[in-house]
């Protein structure tokens, strides 16, 4: 085992040390102590936060997308696991649930763009069938203001994963036997689902659900293809600022990156607490 010893510090440096160093660099960049424009400490970009609503809008928009995507996925996955056990146990559904998991996010985004955009397949079929008078009359399902296309793409990716996770917990927690037991205690099927199955599944899956939420909050490729220039999700907003030719935008981009990364770090700390609690409960 001795040769493995140096690997652990190196791995810690890679996953913890360097990101934290990056976070520190972004903080210093936001007060213009480092970076191409380094001119000494100034708090003007922090003070300007109050007058620049872009970051706030991007944060709210990202929050909406993450809450809607993960929320919808949880509801769909829970519904399927709690109400369609026989279907979930026989072919072809279990196999079909694995299909979206092997698709890269960008492929799913591209597929939905081809399917749902105004020049996409559904719009053309709708026009050919006379359901819409022109391609422009087709409802805006991608690159729309509410982010429907982005949400749909995330749901397509998250919902099968959560269904498989809930199903594994269902079996591991012996919920089928708990169902029988609660029925002899007098509980109806609905009471079993509400008071036993759903809380138990959500509690055990909470770390993974939060992880999905963090991943959706920081998603880049799906909102890049299926989103609008405004409002933008956080990752697209920051990347756009960082890639601008105007170097004076850089401190604001560092500031945005620092705030977002700090927020995600807090969520990861919550996640670690949930993982520890779950480990204690399962012994």
């Amino acid at each position: 085992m001795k040769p493995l010893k140096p690997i652990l510090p190196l791995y810690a440096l890679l996953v913890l040390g360097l990101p934290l160093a990056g976070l520190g660099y972004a903080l210093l960049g936001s007060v213009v102590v480092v970076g191409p424009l380094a001119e000494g400490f100034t708090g003007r970009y922090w003070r300007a936060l109050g007058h620049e609503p872009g970051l706030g809008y991007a944060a709210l928009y990202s929050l909406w997308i993450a809450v809607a995507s993960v929320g919808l996925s949880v509801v769909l996955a829970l519904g399927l696991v709690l109400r369609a056990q026989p279907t979930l146990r026989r072919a072809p559904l279990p196999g079909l649930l694995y299909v979206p998991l092997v698709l890269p996010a960008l492929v799913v985004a591209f597929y939905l763009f081809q399917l749902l955009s105004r020049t996409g397949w559904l719009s053309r079929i709708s026009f050919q069938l006379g359901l819409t008078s022109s391609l422009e009359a087709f409802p805006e399902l991608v690159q729309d203001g509410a982010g429907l296309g982005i949400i749909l793409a995330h749901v397509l990716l998250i919902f099968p994963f959560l269904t498989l996770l809930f199903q594994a917990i269902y079996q591991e927690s012996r919920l089928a036997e708990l169902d029988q037991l609660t029925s002899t205690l007098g509980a109806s099927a609905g009471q079993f689902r509400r008071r036993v199955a759903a809380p138990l599944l959500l509690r055990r899956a909470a770390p993974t659900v939060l992880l999905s939420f963090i991943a959706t909050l920081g998603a880049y490729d799906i909102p890049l293809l299926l989103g609008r220039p405004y409002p933008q999700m956080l990752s697209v907003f920051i990347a756009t600022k960082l890639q601008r030719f105007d170097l004076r935008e850089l401190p604001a981009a560092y500031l945005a990156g620092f705030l977002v990364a700090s927020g995600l770090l807090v969520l990861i700390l919550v996640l670690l607490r949930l993982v520890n609690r779950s480990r204690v409960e399962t012994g």
Partner: protein
Amino acid sequence: MLTVSHLSKQFNGQPVLRDISLTLAQGEVLAVLGRSGCGKTTLLKILAGIETADAGTLELHGQDLLPAPPNERQMVYLYQEPLLFPHLSVFENVAFGLRIRKVKEAEIKQQVTELLAELELSEHARKSPHQLSGGQRQRVSFGRALIIRPRLLLLDEPFGNLDAQTRAAMQELFGRVSRQHHITSIFVTHDSREALTVGSRLGYLERGSLTSFASVADFVADPRTNIAAELSFWENIRQTANPTSTPA
């Protein structure tokens, strides 16, 4: 009075229960001895309504129970494992049956507190199931069943996973609480000693057929229960270990 008449069940053409008939008066504990695969669990599950019978009738106080779903029978089925709700505290596990019946909060608090004290679990009320020992978990499971005052308690080798000492303590507790609450129950086990300890009536289930015994002597004398052979074994051990002593 529970009356089971000519109950039969097959799985894939294989008979699991054959023409089972029995009666059980209020407050009696029928201990059913049987080896693994003899049909004990299937019998209990049919009585609980979790499994359906192919033939036969099941009546409690003259009411036909077969059409009733399990949640309307008020017959609690206890597994070998306690199967507590892991997301609920000990108090809430015991209170479960009252909460789903929408009993008032004050009434729930009073009943659960009293029962926890009776089961010597008061100090564990706020704990989670994973913080309890095996015997404590089984007591919580027992309390969760008792709180709804079941018309019939069905116990499927409930103490099978406990160590000998805890098992003996649980048998004593079960006997005490059963007498106190006048609970009618069917207790299946593969341990003849346990059957004799907890049962006020005794039966033997073999390949789906139930034999009811009129007395403890008949139960002990039946070679299938293996009690006579075991007594002889221990007598031989005693004589080998202490050849000069004579039986009292």
